[in-house]
């Protein structure tokens, strides 16, 4: 049977798509998922995979030729020697990327290298799987050069990520222990288990990029570099708190590092981050806004309205969904029919990717690519990271709704242990050095709590301050 190969709708602004090169010759066999050809749009260079196995029989659009999405550029058959049927016949079934949604999400998950880096790697027959990104971004040309020269990738970035994740984990656990002793005022929504998402995303941002966090903000704030003393004092309701005691645990901020007041209305920060990004764009700035939210937020209207507006405005915003499987106590299967929340991006003509949120390197590679796209004016992206919340939704939630087996399986994928092993085995960082980092974090945390406890309470008069500017 003959199948036509079609230029997918790549979510570009429309117009021509240029064929860069075919990676398969006529007559050659391909498996589903193998890259057939590379195209260039006004937005990016992308590899177009085959969606079924077969033989490439005819190339109808060659390198440097331009076509429109939906155009047939080649023909495949199931066997190597069968007759090719007229491609315009009704029986012809497309094999590549008929639906924009499918093609885009499949292409995206491979997109962890810049087009130039990919091109260079291809020229040298270097498998990108053997190239490590040196910093918190997708594989760049310098990484390919380093790999070609046989140089090891610097471990600095990974060590910094380890330190940041340890700080978050130890801080949250320290608070939890104090909470069990009745020493933490107010509410508590903790992020143990989700550290890789916060750190992987924020380590790819600039200081002047803005993040909009949630009722579970500690990881995002610390990953963005917020003051540990100020957020700790805020949790204890002190005058030295990051927002003077007006916020509490769910409303943490550090404006000096672009961490806006975290928002405790589920999904509300999605349109807000969008508007922030629209303002950046209008002001001619190359700053990026990031909205963090959970899987539960994907079912509130603000998600739909915000993503759609961001898409039509090409707003430089990245939507980061931390899919920890539970909206408070309700499992995602009870509330949502689709398996990949990132697929919803297709409904807005946006790119959407699902990735492992327990792997800080994978998180970072994907986030860096999305952030770079946003910064270059190529519009928003929805990133879904699969992760797990080790503790309850909020204080006093013993998680009676989660099976032990499920919890064990996620704990076995712990993002910090994963980096510890990688640093130790792949980069030769000793246990002793890693232990030193942990001790330093612990001391910093204990000092922050001491600072908070020793700080004065806000004055009664300050209750009336800052209603209006």
């Amino acid at each position, binding site marked *: 049977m003959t199948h036509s190969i079609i230029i997918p709708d790549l979510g570009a602004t429309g117009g021509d798509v240029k064929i860069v090169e075919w990676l398969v010759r006529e007559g050659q066999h391909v498996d589903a998922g193998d890259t057939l050809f590379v195209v260039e749009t006004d937005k990016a260079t992308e590899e177009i995979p085959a969606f079924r196995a077969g033989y490439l029989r005819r190339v109808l659009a060659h390198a440097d030729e331009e076509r429109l999405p939906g155009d047939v550029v080649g023909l495949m058959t199931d066997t190597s020697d069968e007759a090719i049927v007229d491609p315009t016949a009704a029986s012809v079934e497309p094999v590549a990327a008929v639906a924009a949604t499918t093609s885009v999400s499949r292409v995206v998950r491979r997109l962890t290298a810049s087009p130039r880096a990919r091109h260079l790697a291809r020229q040298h027959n270097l498998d990108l799987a053997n190239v490590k990104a040196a910093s918190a971004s997708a594989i760049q040309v310098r990484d390919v050069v380093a790999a070609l020269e046989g140089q090891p990738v610097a471990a600095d970035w990974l060590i910094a990520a380890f330190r940041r994740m340890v700080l978050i984990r130890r801080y949250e656990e320290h608070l939890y222990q104090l909470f069990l002793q009745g020493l933490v005022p107010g509410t508590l929504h903790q992020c143990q288990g989700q550290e890789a998402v916060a750190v992987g995303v924020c380590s790819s941002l600039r200081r002047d990029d803005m993040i909009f966090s949630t009722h579970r903000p500690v990881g995002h704030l610390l990953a963005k570099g917020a003051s540990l003393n100020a957020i700790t004092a805020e949790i204890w309701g002190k005058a030295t708190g990051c927002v003077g005691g007006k*916020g509490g645990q769910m409303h943490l901020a550090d404006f000096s590092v672009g961490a806006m007041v975290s928002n405790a*209305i589920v999904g509300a920060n999605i349109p*807000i981050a969008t508007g922030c990004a629209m303002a950046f764009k*209008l002001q001619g700035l190359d700053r990026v806004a990031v909205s963090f939210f959970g899987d539960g937020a994907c079912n509130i209207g603000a998600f739909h309205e915000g993503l759609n507006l961001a898409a039509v405005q090409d707003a430089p915003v990245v939507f980061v969904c931390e899919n920890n499987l539970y909206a408070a106590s309700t499992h995602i299967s009870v509330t949502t029919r689709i398996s990949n929340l990132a697929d919803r991006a297709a409904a807005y003509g946006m790119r959407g990717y699902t990735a492992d949120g327990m792997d800080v390197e994978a998180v970072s590679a994907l986030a860096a690519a999305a952030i770079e796209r946003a910064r270059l004016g190529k519009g928003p992206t929805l990133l879904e990271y699969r992760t797990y919340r080790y503790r309850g939704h909020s204080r006093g939630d013993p998680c009676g709704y989660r099976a032990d087996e499920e919890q064990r399986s996620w704990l076995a994928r712990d993002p910090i242990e994963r980096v510890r092993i990688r640093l130790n085995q792949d980069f030769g960082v000793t246990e002793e050095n890693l232990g030193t980092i942990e001790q330093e974090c612990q001391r910093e945390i204990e000092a922050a709590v001491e600072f908070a406890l020793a700080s004065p309470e806000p004055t009664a008069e300050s209750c009336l301050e800052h209603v209006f500017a």
Partner: protein
Amino acid sequence: MGMAEALRDAMRIAMRKDPTVLLLGEDIGVSGGFGGGFTVTLGLSDEFGHDRVIDTPISESAIVGAAVGAAMAGSRPVAEMQYGDFVFCAMDQVVNQAAKMHYMSNGQVRVPLVLRLPVGASQRGAQHGQCTEAMFTHTPGLKVVCPATPYDAKGLLLASIRDDNPVVFFEHKLLYGGKGTRKESASVSLGADVPVEDYEIPLGTVAVVREGGDITVVANMLMVHRALSAAEILAAEGIEAEIIDIRCLVPLDIATIEQSVQKTSRLLIVEEDHLTGGWGAEIAALIAERALNYLDAPIRRVAAPDTPLPCAAALERAFVPSVERIVSTAMQMTR
């Protein structure tokens, strides 16, 4: 210049002088379109482009949310709800976000946005004509403005755009003016001169639009004009009403109202908002607290009843405070 033109003029001036001012709303900038529900933004996208006059999807929550985010990032957005009633789709963004961000940040971020709401009964029924000022006066952190004249509309809108706080700006549909099919059939003719210059009317001020010594009548928007008509009838009966246009509800210039009540000893409040929990109830409470001993009669309110807004002309006449009701209530109070 009618009120729609005056508002447009204010936005044009603000946008020319300040590149951070941008407009968001449904149908506000479409080329060949109608400039929002009531022509207020007509032509502005021709001058300022579609990047600054942004046609949004029908997504009120995203319109207001984006305005909040843009304001936090240094822009001065002016967001339009096509009808004021639609703001309820965006109430989280208005009440939980716009109103609270400055406070929640302990003064570290500002949210300088204007939310324009066309309101007022105009034979469109319960979901296209409510006056809902009190819902916003009850939310700390929002300024609430409600002009009655083109002159005030322009000066108050310029002041609102340049204010560093979220301002909910009510515009009564029957006061817009306009021409041809775009003019509301029950429109009030307002012959005010509006200067072409840039001028601001400070928020937090009221206007004494008619002086009189027998009764103070406080009203806003369309009700100011009904109160003025009533005052002419009352004058023929020998009753001189002092009419105060409460063009800004938050912040509230209660002192001017109090001074007037000290002079007249009577207070009548006229509002198209519902009676129960309306802004009129708040004014009544404030005057009772501050000037009870000056009063010669109970404070009275003429307000919309506690029912949804009906559509038919006969029902709407029964719903919206009329000149006759104002006159008869004032007569009872001064008898």
